């Protein structure tokens, strides 16, 4: 209700300044009336004009009347003026060859299309305080690269096209076939870095960050879309699986037999009979040139900004970097050069989904700080009449059978269904509606409820997933509890899928209505739940992430408590010299600390620890210990920023020779003893020390960039000094790739090793000796450096206490678990808890700050309200519960606790469920062996009744 979608719209201009922008927007007409469209697909079905389907990468066709894809929001059809026969031939006022088709108009059952109107673009002036830019990316178009023969051979596809080929709603319905002959490919190759890490032709010097992972994913899921065995090979330069849990997936792919071939393919040759391709590469082991044929070649194309995105920047005055991405800084990751205009997602550079989602929340937080004084002034809320008491009444069910135009009635005999429904127990009235969801029907529904004194309502129509909220509102309007409502999905799950079997569809519809009526008869009014929100926050951990979170929350106007276990704020940031972009960290840090410590809304506790936790989202109560003293605190949400540390290596003579450093130690060494660099004999960096090893199977994400930074610094200080980097894969993702390039240009020597053949470090007299096997020369190389720098892993802080207190999740590596790896990367699985920084996964400063600000934004969704409504579909304890406690551990949300009570002097036990924590998933209900806990609206009795009703005629 509080989001206005302007679709088919573009920004034409902007004026004003931060806090008071005026944005000019041009919105094209969708021709179809959004209020009337019911997304029945008839217009598309009847439209005679086929055009290439851009969603399926042009691999198949759609119509001029269309939706882009099934999940489109809003789910409303549009007519593409540029291709529509009617408009192409002149539309309603064309002089020559006036448009004639009008099929869509004729068949639209709701009259949503009236082609006689004047369809002009609409210009809107919008007044806003902040602007966020998220125009997204464009996949790189490889047509210009003749080496890949993309335009010449049919069986060379881009990864986006391949994605559509695999998709079950793609052109081949999820059964993979290749374009040339429609056969199922058996051998598939991926070529990485197409349009990335390449300055020869496309000038995209950056790494697109996501392609390695998606190529691996595609190779892994290919088996699900093909029938027999397939052979997959990925040709790569470095595998960059630096995300959380990504490296494990890479290892899994290797185990599954996906071949990873380190080679940049330079030429693609045609396959036999115009099908498939042939590629040529060097076998790493033998050094021989190999020619191999593949049935299909996938180009792992990179990400770049589209021309329209670039134009947008120009309209708004936003500066772009040399790769045409929005310029940003490490300390204000979502800000652009224009105050009040923010950017997120791939507009700033290539990013994967979790990072994009995090950045989006970060931008939202930044954009809302300046608006916080105006919060809530434009929001709308609806009011309803008081709720009628129906508990204890006999069920009086009204059934409304929807024809949905002809969507239902075209297949199912609705009159027959109406008659049948009248015969069902508890049903006191049945009506047929043309469109149950239309606004006038809502009025009618409300009247009928009152006229027939209905206390339960069944609508047999489409899916509750889209329409239940609408009817629930109508229930409330009629003064009934919204949960006394049930739908029978006779459209999406009946008429639409059994169109050719009307008799059986009617049988099924009868069953569906019967099942719905039976369930409706058993429904009980549910209490409206809410929690009072304590509009204050706790931030655990006073490192960079914690401080950014605390400051953000306080700037939004929330009282914030910041706990730090050490005696000063700052954490790891004290040990970092600069960001990868070269920004100096110390001044920023000092400024940040002073702002935090002097903020009137932030209470900082140092030498502090969390001891207990009670309560849940909105209303947490904890005890903390500060300098040995206990103290009670209350807060509505918590942001966990407990951080991590640099791993102390056990190998490579670390701790035994003073010339062996970790990164952070070496940073300090360089700043303190800079003059010694001149005399240094050389430096060796060993990558992946403690990372990507069996007992720590993740990539630490920051070390490659750090190494580049240090190596460049050494080379610049002393160009003659030999600098070696012993690595497994260089993972300078995004624009960090420039650093890698610079290091190579400065003469840093890169030697690759693998896990079976790690470098050996020993001492020969006074000399430190590093032995490595050169992967090109196949020869051992001996280096005697002055410095050996170990790119040591980032390890998470011990979280046992936190996990016990909040019942939050850890992954197998000890990092805190987010609620959803892709879609909720900042939320924890426990409601009201958020996370940021190294406790989540190793990440550089800019990403820490982005995540910390994202946490502020996510937290604000709760803190901005004094009362938080909860869904009523929650578990409840029945009288059958006797506290066996089997369900306690099965609850994924930790919402179940055990309690004692006394009857006639005898102690008994039962469970209690926490309404704020419960998500209504009902795992407890399925676990309980004695019907001691159910979920409202889905009780065992209700589900059983549905089973019985379903099988009544068997």
């Amino acid at each position, binding site marked *: 209700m509080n989001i206005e979608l302007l679709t088919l719209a573009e920004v034409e201009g902007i004026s004003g300044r931060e806090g008071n922008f005026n944005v000019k927007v041009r919105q094209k007409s969708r021709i179809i009336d959004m209020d009337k469209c019911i997304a029945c697909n008839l217009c598309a079905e009847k439209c005679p004009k086929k055009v290439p389907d851009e969603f399926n990468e042009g691999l198949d066709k759609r119509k001029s009347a269309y939706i882009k894809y099934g999940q489109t929001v809003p789910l409303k059809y549009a007519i593409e003026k540029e291709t529509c026969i009617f408009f192409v031939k002149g539309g309603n006022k064309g002089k020559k060859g006036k448009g004639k088709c009008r099929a869509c108009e004729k068949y639209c059952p709701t009259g949503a299309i009236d082609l006689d109107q004047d369809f002009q673009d609409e210009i809107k002036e919008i007044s806003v305080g902040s602007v966020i830019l998220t125009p997204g990316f464009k996949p790189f178009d490889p047509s210009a690269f003749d080496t890949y023969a993309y335009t010449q051979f049919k069986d060379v596809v881009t990864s986006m096209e391949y994605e559509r080929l695999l998709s079950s709603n793609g052109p081949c319905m999820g059964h993979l076939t290749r374009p040339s002959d429609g056969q199922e490919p058996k051998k598939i190759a991926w070529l990485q870095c197409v349009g990335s890490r390449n300055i020869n032709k496309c000038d995209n010097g950056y790494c697109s960050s996501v392609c390695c992972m998606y190529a691996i994913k595609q190779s892994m899921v290919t088996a699900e879309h093909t029938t027999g065995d397939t052979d997959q090979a990925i040709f790569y330069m470095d595998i960059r699986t630096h995300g959380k849990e990504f490296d494990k997936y890479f290892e899994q792919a290797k185990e599954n037999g996906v071949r990873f071939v380190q080679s940049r393919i330079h030429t693609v040759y045609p396959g036999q009979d115009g099908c498939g391709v042939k590629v040529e590469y060097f076998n790493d082991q033998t050094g021989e040139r190999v020619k191999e044929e593949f049935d299909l070649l996938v180009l792992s194309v990179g990400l770049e900004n589209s021309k329209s995105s670039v134009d947008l920047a120009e309209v708004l005055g936003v500066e772009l970097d040399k790769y045409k991405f929005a310029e940003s800084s490490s300390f204000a990751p979502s800000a652009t050069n224009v105050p009040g205009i923010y950017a997120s997602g791939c507009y700033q550079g290539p990013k994967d989904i979790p990072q994009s989602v995090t950045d989006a929340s970060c931008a939202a937080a930044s954009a809302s700080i300046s608006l916080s004084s105006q919060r809530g002034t434009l929001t709308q809320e609806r009011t309803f009449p008081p709720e009628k008491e129906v508990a204890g009444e006999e069920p009086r069910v009204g059934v409304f059978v929807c024809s949905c135009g002809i969507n239902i009635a075209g297949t199912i005999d609705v009159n027959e269904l109406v008659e049948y429904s009248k015969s069902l127990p508890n049903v006191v009235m049945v009506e047929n509606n043309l469109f149950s969801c239309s606004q006038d029907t809502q009025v009618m529904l409300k009247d009928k409820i009152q006229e027939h004194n209905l206390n339960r309502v069944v609508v047999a129509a489409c899916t509750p997933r889209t329409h239940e909220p609408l009817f629930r509102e109508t229930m409330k309007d009629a003064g009934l509890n919204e949960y006394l409502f049930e739908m029978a999905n006779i459209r999406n799950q009946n008429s639409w899928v059994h169109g050719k079997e009307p008799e059986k569809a009617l049988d099924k519809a009868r069953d569906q209505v019967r099942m719905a009526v039976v369930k409706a008869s058993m429904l009980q009014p549910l209490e409206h739940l809410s929690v009072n929100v304590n509009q204050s926050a706790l931030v655990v951990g006073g490192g960079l992430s914690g401080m950014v979170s605390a400051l953000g929350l306080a700037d939004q106007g929330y009282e914030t408590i910041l706990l730090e276990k050490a005696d000063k704020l700052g954490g790891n940031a004290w040990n970092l010299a600069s960001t990868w972009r070269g920004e100096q960290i110390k001044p920023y840090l000092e400024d940040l600390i002073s702002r935090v410590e002097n903020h009137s809304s932030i209470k900082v506790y140092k030498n502090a620890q969390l001891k207990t936790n009670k309560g849940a989202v909105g209303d947490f109560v904890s005890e903390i210990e500060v300098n040995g003293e206990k103290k009670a605190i209350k807060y509505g949400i918590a942001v966990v920023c407990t951080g991590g540390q640099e791993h102390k290596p056990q190998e490579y003579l670390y701790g035994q020779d003073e010339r062996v450093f970790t990164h952070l130690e070496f940073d300090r060494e360089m700043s303190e003893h800079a003059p010694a660099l001149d005399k240094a004999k050389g430096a060796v960096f060993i990558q992946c020390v403690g990372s990507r090893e069996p007992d720590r199977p993740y990539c630490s994400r920051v070390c490659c960039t750090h190494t580049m930074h240090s190596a460049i610094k050494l080379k610049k200080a002393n160009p003659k000094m030999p600098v070696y980097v012993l690595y497994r894969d260089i993972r300078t993702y995004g624009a960090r790739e420039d650093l890698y390039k610079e290091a190579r240009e400065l003469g840093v020597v890169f030697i690759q090793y693998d896990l079976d053949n790690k470098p050996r470090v020993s001492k020969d007299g006074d000399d430190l000796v590093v032995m490595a096997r050169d992967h090109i020369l196949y020869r051992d190389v001996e280096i005697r450096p002055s410095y050996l720098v170990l790119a040591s892993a980032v390890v998470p802080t011990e979280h046992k206490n936190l996990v016990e207190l909040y019942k939050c999740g850890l992954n197998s590596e000890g990092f805190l678990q987010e609620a959803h790896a892709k879609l909720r990367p900042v939320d924890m699985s426990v409601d009201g808890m958020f996370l940021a920084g190294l406790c989540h996964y190793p990440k550089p400063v800019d990403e820490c700050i982005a995540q910390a600000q994202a946490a502020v934004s996510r937290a604000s969704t709760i803190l901005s309200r004094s009362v938080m409504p909860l869904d009523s579909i929650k578990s409840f304890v029945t009288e059958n519960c006797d*506290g066996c406690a*089997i369900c306690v*551990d099965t609850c994924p949300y930790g919402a179940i606790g055990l309690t004692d009570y006394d009857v006639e002097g005898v102690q008994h036990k039962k469970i209690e469920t926490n309404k704020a924590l419960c998500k209504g998933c009902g795992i407890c209900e399925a676990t309980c062996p*004695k019907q001691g806990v159910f979920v409202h609206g889905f009780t065992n009795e209700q589900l059983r009744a549905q089973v019985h009703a379903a099988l009544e005629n068997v």
Partner: protein
Amino acid sequence: MTKVTVAEEWLNACAGCEIAILNVGDVLVDLLVNNLDFVHIPVILDKKYFGQTGEEEHLSIPEAVVGIVSGGVRNEEHKEVLLEMRKKCQILIALGTCATDGGIPAMINMYSDEELKQFYYKDSLTTDPAEYPTEHIPPLLDQCYALDELVKVDLYLPGCPPHPDWIAGAVLALLEGKTEYRMPEKSVCDSCPTIRESKKGLADIKRMLSAPEFDPEKPLDEMRCLLEQGFLCLGPVTGVGCGGHKGAPRCISARVPCRGCYGPVRKGAKPLVDYMGALASVGFDPNKMPDRRGYLARFSGAHGTLKRPVRR
């Protein structure tokens, strides 16, 4: 107060229920003298089916207000006696888990009569193989049934044996003229005072080859739940009541896990399914469950819970 007439019968039973009646204790004598008039009860009364000299043709049992039947139904004679009891008694009580759910003898439902006889008369270690007996003995039914699979049962008093508290409670309720008496529909856990914390780590189930941990000097409420100690305890899926109105579960008192002798928590519940589901939910691999049916349906083999496996 006039005496209430009572008829008692035992079918596929062991006499444990009858001993349990005796264990009502001292009040029994008063009840027998003042309140109850047993018109038929083979264990203590010489009332015969075919007349006292055994000459009548049809089996007959005297009329009574209350009929108590223990044991399940396994042969034609049990069936005949049960039907006669139902005919002659106003209120029929199923006494004991054999009567309510088949009890342990219903474990035979995993086998066919033919298998059983083959094993018993031909394959047994010490038996001279012989033809199966058939003369003057009632044929076996195809399986062992609970009473309510054949007749209407008015009142259920499960237990193996039932606790005297409930027997006395039911009798007193009937004496007061009530026609209903219901056992609580909770599980053994309701009466179990042991410490419950978490079922985490129940990946493996220990057999009773090792002892649970407990301090014998300390009461039950200081012992950790046996299931949480890794022993399969059927408490969660077994009807409460073995400890009487207020007592702790009897097996738990002996520091051994429940095996389900009170039958399902309520009529129609399926301990086997309920418990496998619950255990699987806490991370237990159902495939690692030894002798699933022998543990989880040991007392509830009637009502189709235990069936002969389809032999291929």
